[in-house]
């Protein structure tokens, strides 16, 4: 797969637009002693799913914000990197929510934004960490690496931005929620993902699949 079809709901001031965007260049931030670099990764790791399955009993989940190239200006989203260390890097998921904002409406109040991480079912959620947005590399710094002359991202690009020292060890099964709260505009971007174990079958006893024929009043030529 060389592209991922991202289907965001972009919340504007009084509306929602739903551009479908082909992502074919995906970057993760790589924090080094000299600063932040961007590392290209395969788009097959991207998902907007709300349910994921793992063989590991423990995952490392790193909250992230997401920058997406779009015709009307860079989109700003929320997501996370999920590492199942038993499977190597190819088994990782990069989550990106189907909700996004326009970056240009945030640039004057990044100091009023923070991550709020919760775990547990909706009715019993517990906050496990709150993180000021200022601890993350700034969007301008990341955009500059792909487009030194401008403020827009190149077509088809998506950047997953994490920061050092912030990751969560999460037991499976669990429900993990990452939220970027914009206290200035009183709104939030939320993605909640249910993490399931491949070792536990919630459907036991699992029956053999059946097939149906259809109209039984006619002559049916068996198709198998």
């Amino acid at each position, binding site marked *: 797969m060389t592209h991922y079809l991202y289907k965001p709901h972009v919340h504007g001031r009084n*509306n*929602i637009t739903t551009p479908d965007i082909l992502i074919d260049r995906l970057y993760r931030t790589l924090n080094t002693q000299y600063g932040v670099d961007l590392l290209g990764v395969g788009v097959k790791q991207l998902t907007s799913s709300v349910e994921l399955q793992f063989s590991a009993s423990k995952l490392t989940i790193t909250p992230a914000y997401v920058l997406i190239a779009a015709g009307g200006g860079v989109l700003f989203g929320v997501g996370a990197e999920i590492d199942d260390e038993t499977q190597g890097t190819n088994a990782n998921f990069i989550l990106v929510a189907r909700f996004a904002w326009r970056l240009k409406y945030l640039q004057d109040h990044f100091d009023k934004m923070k991550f709020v991480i919760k775990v547990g079912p909706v*009715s019993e959620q517990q906050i496990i960490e709150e993180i000021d947005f200022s601890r993350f590399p700034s969007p301008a710094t990341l955009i500059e690496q792909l487009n030194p002359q401008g403020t827009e991202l190149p077509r088809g690009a998506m950047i997953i931005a994490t920061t050092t020292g912030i990751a969560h060890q999460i037991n499976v099964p669990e429900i993990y929620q990452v939220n970027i709260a914009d206290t200035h505009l009183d709104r939030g971007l939320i993605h909640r993902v249910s993490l399931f174990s491949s070792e536990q079958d919630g459907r036991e006893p699992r029956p053999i699949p059946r097939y149906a024929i259809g109209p039984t009043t006619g002559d049916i030529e068996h198709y198998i």
Partner: protein
Amino acid sequence: MKITAYAATMQAVWFSEDMGETWLRPPTPTGGFYNEIRCWAVCTHPQRPGEVLAGTDQGLYRWSHEQQRWNYIPSPMDDLHILQIAQSPDDPKIIICGTRPAEIFISEDDGKSWQRSNLNAATECWFINTTRVTSIQFDPADADTIWITIEIDGVFRSRDRGKTWDHLIDGLRDNDTHNLVFLNGNNRRTILCSTEAGLHKSIDEGKSWQYMDIPQAPWLYFRSIQRKENDSNIIFASVGDKPSGEAGILLISRDQGQSWEKAALPEPVSSTIWWISTNPADPNLIFLCTIFGQIFRSQDGGESWRKMQRVLGEIRMIAWAPTPE
């Protein structure tokens, strides 16, 4: 009473604010979803005025009358076709969705979280390749009991709100089932089931089904059946030459399905009547649609019908509800 009618089509959901005379879609720049999104189902609830749930090929959406837009509801159904939606009559936070492939997803917290029910419907079908849910109903006598019909795998019933299911097909001439109607009798109730091979009834809670011979029906393909809201004796049933069909009729029974007569539609339908919509807010106001876009309206409980001038594309469901003040 001012009402809004909703038509779920292969080009999004159309709205009518004038009793079906004219139809519009919310504009794409502000409406919340793409105007050619495929939509199969719309669902309203008396306790949620101005709110509509829509099942599409890109996920589940909720219309906000106040915001005048569709809001996306994250769910595990984003890559499925959401063909049917039902909300518990007692509690609109309990939402059940039926999909293609034929699966049932249940939320008990207004769509915040979802569980896939352990429904063991057929996973493959000679006739339509992939099975699909054609109707979902909460049992009028017990909100924990759910009935569904599947094309093509018969009738399923759950008495524990989706935890376990009974497969009820004994006596059906065909498992291509489309819809159910529950009729209260003196000491027992009758359940009607529309199928590809005629109308069936059960007087033992679905344990067995009996074919009903209806001479007024020129074809066997029974699609939508619906009870008049305030009169359990009156039932409407649509019959087509085939799916999607080139001809069809509407039948009315005034005696719980014992006898039928052909309804006087003002002009022929050009495809099978796919859905009949009632609402307890006005039992006499009924909309019906054909799958290829015709819309008819009755304001006298189905005694007379008027065809709306506007023809939409492919309509899979029609609904109406009072418009909030």
